[in-house]
């Protein structure tokens, strides 16, 4: 009950698993147990007050399912979620629901087309008794001001707004209940590039202004880099690497994180670099396996450039980096215990370009693409 004790994490997920039944009911009955898709498969995650954490990964990695579960919009099949150290019930009380609010990806389908913005906010405020009835309109207008919309927006319907404005309305709706945690699931991926920037800036300002804790789900690592302090990389229902954003982007520990970063097209690639890269293979080969057939051992080994025999048999745990306790990775070779490079190029990795040669040999690194005068041209 003592909110904001300050010591523990604000939100804490322990061993969360979410399964979906798939296939026919009949087959399930014959087999006596339904076939299950393991969307989220044992995730521990702490969210400190005021921080911005990103969940990244390919589609199907379980990041959205995890977000919905944390927001209380769907139940977990295993594990528990704690808010201020208190375990949340499966069906949360209204007071608990209020503290975690969500912004969805598609502002065209997540707003009720038949309600005016004022009506939408008023309904919410009355149900949750946020302000006295007489102050609902004034408070709604205040909310809209907060997200950069005028008061006349109260009387407008969603269809009268552009995509960016709709997303502002969605954010205002999420903020109406004065949440502690805002969960944003791909909040800008449905928007045009020039509009994305306004929403990203808004989220950033709101965080500073209201002291919001932000959980951002995004496949766009540049967006993540812009907004978040900490990043959790998901793969097939598990977190494979988590750590402070700057360190993780500069020196990824898990081969999947390295691949994800290397796969991002960059605006500022030197021509010779581009040609060199065209020769190389893809950053991550193949497709993510189906969550119905999760590989034994390490889940990433089927696409991993450095997989060894041990990877097929032992599932690596998410371990702390001995050099930096803020970082964790789930790879047998994450912290320099064994060869980290593909067998083909050990010599190249042994000669890093800088004088501060890292003790851990690395694969091709995104951070190294742009050394020195990055924007230099021919």
């Amino acid at each position: 009950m003592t909110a904001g004790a300050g010591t523990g994490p604000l939100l804490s997920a322990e061993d969360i698993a979410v399964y979906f039944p798939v296939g026919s009911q009949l087959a399930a009955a014959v087999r006596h147990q339904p076939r299950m898709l393991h969307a989220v498969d044992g995730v521990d995650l702490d969210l400190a007050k005021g921080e911005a954490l990103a969940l990244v990964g390919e589609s199907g990695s379980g990041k959205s399912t995890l977000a919905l579960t944390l927001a209380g919009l769907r139940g977990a099949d295993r594990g528990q979620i704690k808010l201020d150290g208190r375990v949340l019930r499966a069906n949360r009380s209204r007071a608990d629901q209020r503290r975690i609010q969500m912004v969805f990806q598609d502002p065209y389908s997540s707003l009720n087309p038949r309600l005016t913005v004022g009506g939408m906010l008023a309904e919410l405020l009355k149900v949750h008794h946020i302000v006295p009835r007489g102050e609902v309109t004034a408070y709604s207008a205040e909310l809209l001001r907060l997200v950069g919309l005028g008061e006349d927006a109260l009387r407008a319907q969603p269809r009268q707004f552009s995509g960016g404005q709709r997303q502002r309305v969605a954010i205002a709706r999420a903020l109406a209940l004065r949440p502690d945690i805002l969960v944003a699931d791909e909040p800008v991926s449905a928007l045009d590039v020039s509009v994305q920037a306004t929403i990203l800036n808004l989220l950033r300002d709101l965080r500073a202004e209201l002291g919001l804790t932000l959980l951002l789900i995004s496949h766009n690592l540049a967006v993540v880099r812009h907004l978040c302090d900490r990043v959790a990389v998901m793969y097939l229902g598990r977190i494979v690497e988590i750590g402070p954003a700057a360190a993780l982007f500069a020196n990824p520990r898990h081969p999947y994180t390295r691949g994800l970063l290397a796969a991002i097209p960059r605006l500022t690639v030197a021509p010779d670099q581009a040609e060199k890269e065209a020769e190389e293979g893809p950053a991550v080969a193949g497709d993510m396996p189906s969550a119905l057939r999760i590989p034994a051992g390490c889940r990433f080994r089927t696409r991993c450039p450095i997989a060894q025999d041990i990877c097929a048999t032992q599932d690596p745990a998410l371990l702390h980096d001995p050099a930096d306790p803020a970082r964790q990775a789930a790879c047998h070779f994450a912290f320099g215990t064994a060869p980290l490079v593909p067998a083909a190029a050990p010599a190249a990795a042994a000669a890093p370009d800088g004088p501060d040669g890292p003790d851990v040999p690395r694969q091709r690194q995104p951070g190294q693409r742009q050394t020195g005068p990055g924007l230099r041209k021919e």
Partner: protein
Amino acid sequence: MSGDWAGGAGGAGGRLLEVRDLHVQIPTRRGTVRAVDGVSLEVAGGEALGLVGESGSGKSMTLRAILGVLPSEAKVTAGQILLDGVDLVPLSSSDLNKIRGPKMSMIFQEPMSALNPVMRVGQQIAEGPRVHLGYSRARAAERALELMRRVGIPDPERRFRAYPHEFSGGMRQRVMIAIALSCDPEFILCDEPTTALDVTIQDQILRLLARLCAESGVSLIFVTHDLPVVAQLCQRVAVMYGGQLVETGDVRDVLLEPRHPYTLGLVRSAPDIEEVRESLVPIPGSPPSLVSPPSGCRFHPRCAFAEEDCTVLPTPLRELAGRPRARSTACLHYERCEDAAGAGRAVP
């Protein structure tokens, strides 16, 4: 890949596809939408041209007009589309059908809706060679298998008999590419082919396209809103705004040293993975109405550098003087971008 696109100026490669002053209009109840309003482009052999813009800029309409697959209500009202000197605009659809396939083909954004869901993928790939090249059933099937291998579909003999729903998004896009390649076209028109894909799969597809271009000398027109994708794949870029071209040139020239405020805005508004900026610089306002576009430069209501003359003078693309390679901008005051870009970019 043919790194020297000097061919774009009429050199070794020669001009193969030329769009001259293209206008596409769509009549609606609210008035005529001028979706494409005077676009001129050239694509030389072996070259990849990126056509960039936001939704509603007319980039997809331009692409569809080239292939003659405009929505039924949209019409080409003026301009020429010259393929090896032959104008495609007046051609009948049966004449166009002889060109689609062997000369030009297209890759769409959503492979699931572009593929036939009830036809085996092998047959879909074999259909082109059978119809356009007169291959026998067996020879077309052989060709399909070879294409599936070339685009990196594992186990092609087995996957030949699969249906599109049995493929992942990335594999479906490979099938689309195999279909596009099936009649050995000179041009492949790509409409956001990687937008619906994960970044790792996008990387695979972009590499595949780059390799195919290098191997077979096929030219690409690549429509996207994603500037970094263009930087990775294309040699030249054309930026569209409000149905018109606002800037063209070598990809790195344009993206690193924009000479149009809209391009500059696009570059500055996107977050960058390499450097974290305190705050992004959005482009104020919203895209122009294409029914009654602003007078003068269409970007002027959103432009920080706009002057009196921007609101009245027409702004055709003009070649920049003193450039080694062809580089054009529609901005009357493009020098200001130079100053702004220099000040805005944190040089490491």
